[in-house]
């Protein structure tokens, strides 16, 4: 038998190594549905509507860029970022094109882990790293609200980007580093109102997705939480810092900031309407005043 040449042996070793690396990567980047069971909960669609407004779901899932914040969340409007253009998708309960055939478990999995029912990673333009902080009962209330909407047919579109399949795998890797599985925990040292505000801001409100700067791996830098920075959509101009809002004379007190969130430009708070804040403020305007005061109290405590 002819001895195997050195070159062939190296080639074989490299092939085996490559296959091993590929296997590890495929395993590491796979999107697996969770098998976590949800506790029984008597879901309340009205409470779900409140969370829908805090999250501002409609801001991204609207029918067109010019559509207001009251229409059905059919999700055709493009969400433009420097890396890709996303079409957020239909949240109405249409069975073929929306969430009509989903289970509550699949919805919770999508919201908290960014995994779709067909086992793919969602791109984190969908802010599941924040929604992961939401309590199960809140997610189920939100689910009940979405299921109560009129179903609308809207097939949705794949994102405009090169090699989306590979990019989804890369997201799988990113999630391993970026996703923090610990949920929001109230601070027992603080008041109930403050904790309510903290929860609304950090979980459904997902304010940090824009107001917290990201590092080179596009992971929010929690050591600079809410410090503002470049606009994640690649817009010029800066996302404002939410730190020391009183000291920097942006708002005088809780009532002032509450007015700002409630009325925005109408009351002369003209900073609440650039870079996408206009829609957010209009969504927040639908909240009960107590919740807006809780949000304000929490935000004004950030230093």
């Amino acid at each position, binding site marked *: 038998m002819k001895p195997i040449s050195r070159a062939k042996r190296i080639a074989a070793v490299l092939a085996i190594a490559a296959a091993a690396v590929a296997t590890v990567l495929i395993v590491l980047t796979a999107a697996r549905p969770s098998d976590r069971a949800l506790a029984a909960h008597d879901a309340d669609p009205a409470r779900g509507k409140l969370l829908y407004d805090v999250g501002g779901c409609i801001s991204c899932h609207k029918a067109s860029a010019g559509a207001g914040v009251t229409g059905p969340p059919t999700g055709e409007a493009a969400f433009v970022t420097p890396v890709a253009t996303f079409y957020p998708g239909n949240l109405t309960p249409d069975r073929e094109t929306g969430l009509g055939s989903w289970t509550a478990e699949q919805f919770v999995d999508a919201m908290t882990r960014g995994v779709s029912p067909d086992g793919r990673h969602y791109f984190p333009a969908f802010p599941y790293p924040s929604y992961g902080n939401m309590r199960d009962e809140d997610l189920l209330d939100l689910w009940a609200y979405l299921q109560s909407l009129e179903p609308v047919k809207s097939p949705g579109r794949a994102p405009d980007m090169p090699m989306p399949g590979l990019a989804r795998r890369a997201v799988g890797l990113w999630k391993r580093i970026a996703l923090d599985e610990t949920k929001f925990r109230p601070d027992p040292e603080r008041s109930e109102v403050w904790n309510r505000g903290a929860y609304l801001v950090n979980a459904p409100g997902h304010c940090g997705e824009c107001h917290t700067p990201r590092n080179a791996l596009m992971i929010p830098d929690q050591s600079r939480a809410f410090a*503002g920075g470049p*606009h994640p959509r690649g*817009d*010029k*101009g*800066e*996302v*404002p*810092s939410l730190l020391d809002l009183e000291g920097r004379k942006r708002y005088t007190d809780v009532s002032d900031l509450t*007015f700002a969130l409630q*009325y*925005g*430009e*109408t*009351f*002369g708070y*003209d*900073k609440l*309407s*650039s*870079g*996408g*804040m*206009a*829609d957010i*403020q*209009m969504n927040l305007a639908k909240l009960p005043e107590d919740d807006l005061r809780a949000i304000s109290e929490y935000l004004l405590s950030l230093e």
Partner: protein
Amino acid sequence: MTRLKQCTLAVIAVAIVVTISSAATTGTEAIKQRRKAMDGVKNGIMTLAAIAKKEQPFDAEVVHASAGQIAANLEHAGGLFPEGSDQGEAQTWAKPEIWTDRAHFDELMENTRQAAVDMQAVTEAEAFPPALGKIGSGCKSCHDLYRLPKN
């Protein structure tokens, strides 16, 4: 090089320098003036906001004057976004889309001015909040699309 050629080149060079520098001043001047006009709008809004917050009583005369100040400043501001004034030596938050979607920008500006004109006719306290809401959504509609966020 003939004398004529030299002269021609010199004239062209001077013309270029003059054009560039005047373009720069136009931009800077327009930015300064429109920021002043927008400050005028803001002052009017703040007076109306104080009434809305019930810090001040409803006074039809004050409302009329403030709404007039808003309308006049918006009319003035509309003409202060000439081509090429997307930048200058003064800071501006104007987005380049103003000059690519000009008709829409002008339409939003005009709608907001009209909302301020409508507010001038408000004499009853009940009609005041919705009229103010219309001015507010006017400001918002334009700022949302055509103004950069600032810290």
